[in-house]
């Protein structure tokens, strides 16, 4: 189950990345290589094994429903490439 050129293009689209023709070829080559190796996980017998969810076995860690206001909008917006009226500005989205 080798990854195809079309799949590389599709994956790049999902990830919002742009690949030049040359990069597509290179990525295809490297991904085949890496996925071939990654596939070795399928050699491990995992019958009756549950998949891990995260690194710990803990569960039910919740927060109390109590308000703590951050209260500093300016600092939250201070890294914005473009802002207007206290909001992040982007090209028009319909």
């Amino acid at each position, binding site marked *: 189950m080798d990854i195809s050129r079309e799949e590389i293009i599709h994956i790049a689209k999902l990830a919002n990345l742009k690949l030049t023709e040359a990069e597509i070829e290179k990525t295809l080559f490297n991904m085949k290589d890496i996925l071939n190796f990654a596939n070795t996980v399928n050699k491990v017998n995992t019958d009756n094994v549950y998949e891990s969810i995260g690194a710990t076995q803990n569960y039910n860690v919740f927060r109390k*429903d109590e308000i703590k206001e951050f209260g500093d909008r300016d600092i*939250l917006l201070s890294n914005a490439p473009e802002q207007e009226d206290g909001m992040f500005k982007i090209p028009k989205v319909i």
Partner: protein
Amino acid sequence: MSREDYEIVMGLEVHAELSTKTKIFCSCPTEFGGEPNTHCCPICMAMPGTLPVLNEKVVEYAIKAGIATNCEIAKNSKNDRKNYFYPDLPKAYQISQYDMPLCERGYVEIETEEGKKKIRLTRIHIEEDAGKLNHDEYGRGSLVDLNRAGVPLIEIVSEPDLRSSKEVESYLRKLKSILEYIEVSDCKMQEGSLRADVNVSVRKKGATEYGTRTEMKNMNSFRSIVRAIEYEADRQIDVIENGGKIEQETLRWDDVSGRTFPMRDKEDAQDYRYFPDPDLLAIKMSDEYVEEIRRNLPELPESRKKRYIEEIGLPEYDANLLTASKYLSNLFEGASAICNNPKAVSNWIMTDITKELNERELEPDQIPFTAEQLGNLVVLIDKGTISSSIAKKVLVELFENPKDPMKIVEEKGWIQISDEGAIKEVVLKVLENNQQSVADYKAGKDKALGFLVGQAMKETKGKANPGMLNKMFLEELNK
């Protein structure tokens, strides 16, 4: 073939914002509105390095909703990431639940013309709301406000059990009423805290296979949902009748043009790449915890209805209408407690209040006066302080400028005249000025009495005690 030969098949995905104080994964307030980006912190703005912590109330509220809709509550659950890019989704993934929702396999019962019908629920899961995009003044750009980002939602997914826009409306009203009763959501459609996406397909009557469905979004009132369904069903039937094929797609309802439009570029294949969120831990629900919630669940509409019929003696129709909305039902109970005259309160709600709501295009949750004020209004009638015709005027005042009815009555000078001397004076004056009617009455025309009473009411601007008027006219006329 015509519209009558087709059956519409619908399933709903209802999103309800939970009425917790804080957001689902951070301690920012969930309050509606506010200056843009002021209900935000590094977490809900998805600043690098920040982490989510699940609000315990969100889990509790979702389980409440699950119990109230007859769902099975999962023993094991988890949060998953749904990955996609959109400017209102700051992390580029929505924390939701994929294959292990908190609640599954429930149902809601609705009334239809053919009797009761169970609408099956597939699941209820928790997730976070997205922010909002506003448009800038000159229409050149969009502006991102993340106040709503991270507000907790439950998504209630139904099976494709609905067959008409009427059924959809009953189902939605029922769901809204349940969520209001158990106090997990304020379900304000106008503020977007209750939203429904409708999956619509059509098929020839008698067919067993479902047709291809489309998903409609962006309806923000019961009216627009009904309109959208009617439009979309007609459109699909039209396409099929003309030999076309329905494409599975997401549509946006536009209320102004009354049409649906495709939402996404077909090019943009969606692949959400769900996977368990490694920042959050598993959720495990013990039987004890679920039982505890079940025990403390507020009384549901079905139970209230039963009580109204059996204990208060209201007709089933009235009990149905009163319990359809928590706000009406609470208004009824609150006012009855004050005036101790539930039947009168029920009558007011069933007739005049319903009429006002319709005329003003208001939902019950938008009633501006309190149960206490309504109760006091009934007390004023029962004590004879005002007549029922004045009471109708007071009710209008309660909608326009709510305050204690006694105060309204005093300010407007609407107190009923029950003083015998004053009433006698009016009666004598009316008799004096309407000799013809007096003669008519004496000649056996009973109708003339009504005319005379009406004249006296006119004279007193409706304030005279109608019982006393009647009695006194009779006395005078029969002298």
